[in-house]
């Protein structure tokens, strides 16, 4: 908003000299602090109230005359400034044109009049009118007198001298007025753009500030105003928002246990709840669907034909898989949506899950010479495995979100990339460990509920390893590393396929030795050793990659809205 609304209809136009020509720079007395009319009792300050613009107009013929009074405007600003800042701030240093810029501009309010009094080069320009109360005006004058006494002849306390001092630095008023603009500006061109946007033209710059144009005026302002970056770097507060990064859905606030609720206002809470809703509810979807499928199995009559059971199982599997994508969308939304690699990842994940369900049966059958065409009745793993994996989406999504939010927050406070890396790595380890524990607990609980006993150690570790592998893959794809996210599961699939293939190929004449390693390890540790080792190795490798990749700042770009 402009300053217009605050202005009176008839801005006071006290004494002012009027520049004679368009481009002629005004003399030192051109811009007058409004208050000096009072101090100087009007002596020698002629009023030009005869109509700044009216008088040339009446003589104007055919409109060739362009009115250009500077004085009214100047006084406008002066009056505004004078009425806005306290008297003490109106005191200013003795400043000559040559010295402009050499001395930093004293921040208004910080420099006390007393301090100025101690220094001989400070002069006090009194702005009696601007002082709101008589008492304050009194102190200002007293201080000015003290300054005069302290500095001797250098600072003549006469109104004339003071008037020259006050008006010799019109730029300072400008600085007062546009302090924020000047302090925030990153270079002089920004100040120039800002000044122009506030109605200061080359003409103003020339007439009032004795600069060639707005650019050089802006340069002086830029040189004189202390900048934010000059101040010692403030310790970054945890609450500062990420510069230039936009949290797309306010995910930062979507975890009640993640963000201490500082403002328990009702609208804020409602917003948080709304933002958190997809993140809380969506990951439950696969688990719910999976439960429903098992419920359907339970309600199927035991004499139901095999085709019906297979059909229900297939439909259920497809439904669970289809539910995974919306479940993870809140987590993946910050990643770049590139389609490449998604299909491969989906395929790998499906194969891994298929192995988790039927791999043990297949391996056992292969090792025992089967499966023959007559006895092709696959035996699935215990129902605790799929159920645990389906519900594991919940801790996966939450842990991934936790990692994203926390690392973003650490990003803000990090001074350097290495600093950030050292802060992000523990976070990665913590979230992976959290997920691992959650999955292990889930699997145990699911097995206890469905099967009535704790799962076998082999199955348990295989399921957990698979979960961790998929979790790290999720992290990587959420942070923009689709290639690595695909490579891990694909490698695990390859290892499992190789294990099955080696057993199968051992049946060929002359290749009997191929299947021996798998045979031996299975006989020693059980069939679960194959998926467990494959997934664990892949997960560890992937975790190693993530250790490096996710500790880099470039993994934590946010999708910026524009």
């Amino acid at each position, binding site marked *: 908003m402009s300053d217009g609304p605050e202005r009176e209809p008839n801005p006071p136009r006290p004494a002012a000299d009027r520049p004679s020509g368009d481009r002629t720079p005004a003399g030192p007395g051109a811009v007058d602090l409004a208050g000096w009319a009072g101090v100087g009792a009007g002596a020698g300050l002629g009023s030009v109230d005869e109509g700044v613009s009216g008088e040339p107009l009446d003589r104007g013929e055919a*409109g060739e005359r362009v009115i250009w009074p500077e004085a009214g405007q100047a006084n406008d600003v002066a009056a505004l400034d004078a009425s806005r800042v306290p008297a003490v701030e109106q005191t200013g240093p003795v400043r000559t044109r040559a010295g402009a810029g050499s001395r930093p501009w004293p921040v208004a309010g910080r420099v006390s009049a007393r301090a100025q009094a101690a220094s001989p080069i400070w002069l006090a320009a009194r702005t009696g009118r601007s002082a709101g109360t008589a008492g304050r005006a009194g102190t200002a004058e007293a201080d000015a007198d003290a300054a005069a006494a302290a500095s001797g002849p250098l600072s003549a306390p006469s109104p004339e001298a003071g008037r020259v001092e006050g008006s010799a630095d019109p730029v300072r008023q400008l600085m007062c007025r546009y302090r924020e603009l000047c302090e925030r500006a990153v270079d002089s061109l920004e100040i120039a753009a800002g000044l122009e946007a506030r109605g200061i033209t080359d003409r103003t710059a020339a007439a009032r500030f004795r600069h060639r144009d707005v650019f050089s005026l802006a340069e002086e302002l830029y040189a004189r105003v202390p900048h934010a970056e000059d101040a010692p770097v403030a310790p970054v507060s945890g609450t500062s928002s990420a510069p230039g990064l936009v949290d797309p859905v306010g995910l930062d606030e979507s975890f009640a246990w993640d963000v201490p609720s500082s403002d328990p206002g009702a609208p804020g809470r409602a917003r948080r709840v709304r933002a958190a809703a997809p993140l809380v509810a969506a990951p439950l979807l696969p688990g719910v669907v999976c439960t429903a499928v098992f419920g359907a199995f339970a309600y199927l009559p035991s004499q139901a034909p095999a085709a019906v059971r297979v059909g229900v199982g297939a439909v259920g599997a497809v439904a669970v898989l289809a539910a995974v994508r919306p479940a993870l969308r809140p987590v993946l939304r910050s990643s770049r949506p*590139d389609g490449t690699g998604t299909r491969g990842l989906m395929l790998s994940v499906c194969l891994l899950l298929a192995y988790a369900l039927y791999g043990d049966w297949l391996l056992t059958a292969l090792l025992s010479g089967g499966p023959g065409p007559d006895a092709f009745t696959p035996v699935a793993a215990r129902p605790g495995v799929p159920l645990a994996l389906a519900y594991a989406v919940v801790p996966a999504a939450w842990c991934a979100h936790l990692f994203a939010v926390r690392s973003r927050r650490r990003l803000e406070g990090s001074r350097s990339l290495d600093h950030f890396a050292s802060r992000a790595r523990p976070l990665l380890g913590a979230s992976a460990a959290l997920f691992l524990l959650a999955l292990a607990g889930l699997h145990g609980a699911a097995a206890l509920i469905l099967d009535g006993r704790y799962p076998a150690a082999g199955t348990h570790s295989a399921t957990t390893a698979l979960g961790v592998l998929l979790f790290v893959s999720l992290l990587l794809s959420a942070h923009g590393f689709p290639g690595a996210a695909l490579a891990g599961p694909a490698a695990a699939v390859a290892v499992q396929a190789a294990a099955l293939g080696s057993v199968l190929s051992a049946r060929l004449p002359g290749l009997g030795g191929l299947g021996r390693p798998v045979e031996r390890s299975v006989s020693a540790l059980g069939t679960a050793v194959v998926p467990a080792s494959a997934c664990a190795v892949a997960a560890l490798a992937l975790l190693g990659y993530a250790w490096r990749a996710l500790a880099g700042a470039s993994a934590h770009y946010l999708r910026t809205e524009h």
Partner: protein
Amino acid sequence: MWCDRLLRGLGNHEFEIYALTRSARQEESGWCDLPRNVARVCVAPLWGPASASESADGGGPDRPGFGRRERRRFEGHFRDLAETVCAADQEEGQRGAGSAASGGTHDGTAAAPRPTDAPPAAALTDRFASGLYGLAELARERSGLPAALRSEQAVRILEAACRAPGALRAAHSAQVADLLAVADRMERALRPLSLDWYGERGSGSGLAAADLCHAVGGGTAALAGLLAGRWYGTPLLLTEYGVRLREHYLASAADAVAPAAAGAPVRALLASFQRRLVRETYTRARLITPGNAHARRWQERCGARRDRLRTVYPGMDAAPFTEVGEKPPEPSGGGAGAGAGVRGHTLVWVGRIGPTKDLVTLLHAFTEIRRAVPDARLRIIAASPPPAGGGRSPEDTGDAGYTAHVRALAAQLFPPEPPGVRTLGTRTPGGSPVSFEEVGGPGLPSLADAYAAGGVVVLSSIVEGFPVPLVEAMFCARATVSTEAGAVREVIGGTGLVVPPRDSHALSDACLSLLRDPARRARLGAAARARALELFTAQQNIEAFRGIYLELMSYWQEGGRGGDGADGGGVPLPFARPPESHLPDQWPDQWPGTGDRGTGALAKGGAGAVPGWAGPAGWADDGSAPAMPVAASRQGEEDAG
């Protein structure tokens, strides 16, 4: 909009349009139906994520992604770029202090011998250019530049550059989040580098086949033209009605107060990047056509050479205002439903109500006018389609609140019987003297009627680009009182009154003097109309560009493509390939002696002020590079059609 007019106006040139969009909204707003001489339209987004094929690890089969060698090359080039962006610009300060009087040496290249500070500045400029073009070469050979610009490697380089000695002070305090923000924005700004717009030399498609690149706006929008000039020697013409760099600064300053404020380091680095990019554009452009003196000053300030600047005023369609403008002045007839005397004492303000228009001052001035002329009226007419011409400033936001504020103030100053909107029919001497209306409302079917409704048109802006309402008022032969802002002064010339902004006294005095003097009003109005018809018609703008196109093409040499533009590529040989060689037969009849005119104008350099017109529109945000293929036969066809 003005681009559209240009395309239609220059029917004998064939254009290809390459546009960059900044937001989804802009993309959805779509295209107006294009004239027939537009051969091809390419659109690329500067927003959202980089396209899938570019951001993937692998890239397409024809342009494989970055391998180890490319990464090393990328590192070198990006380091050049980053270090120059982060480097403190000594040039800026020095120039302001030193060359205040000698404005001609604003050249980033080592054209003029400069004092001691010149070598580092020139070296920095060169380094920036070499980094930029190096990245462009890389992007041309292999895809994957966007991914590389967002990679950890790029962030590390940026960090090192920020910490290097001699870097900007603000850059020293850059934190990791700042670096990320900068890398992200730079990736988006440099996206034109990895577009497939350029084609191969001799392939007859893409920018390689163009005779001329006409970029609308400096900086990112001109990147494509810059590269075409670099690779194929295509001359670059740059038109800026509002200076992009200035808009960047304004947006950046507005960002600084936004709730999710970008840190000072981010803004400093991005500003530095934009400044260098713009300077490079200005240095390489063969000709720059600012829309007014204000843009011209900025361009000079940012490194444009004076002899390559030529002001081309934006043009406007004068036809809707002809009837009002030609109407004999007052005595004969009243305006729509009102007597002559009433109309003569009516002030009209037309425009988009916003804080920059400073209607508050106008209302205060009107209180004084009312005191002197009791039956004076003020009609504030909001033009619904935004007619702003030059720079769109971020202050335009919050217009609604400002409108309400102004209305409240008007109701307070001039207490009416029923406050609020008043229409023409109810305007009685007893009612409120200030009315708020809209174009298209009752009694004001068109913009021209709005101007016709008053005797004096007032413009009270404190910030103005190219003042479209003023030009419209001039077309309508109205006497005007306007505030000195933006290009007002050069537009109005001597045909209206100009007062300082924010000065209600001066405004009221000027208005009063016109209200009391109908003869003078008529005189001024006639002069204003004559001036506007001479300088600000669309036809003038088109003809100016027609001449400039031919002139630039005449300088372009098929063989001697220096790649560096005129100052790098040796002595330009005019008419090495005369424009007539690929122009239809009838063309010389239309424009006898154009060639001479062109050369003469270029030799003199930027003296001409050729009038024209500019529109806002989505186009202004695009970098479009109309291109005119060499094929004479095709041009002939287009001309016949």
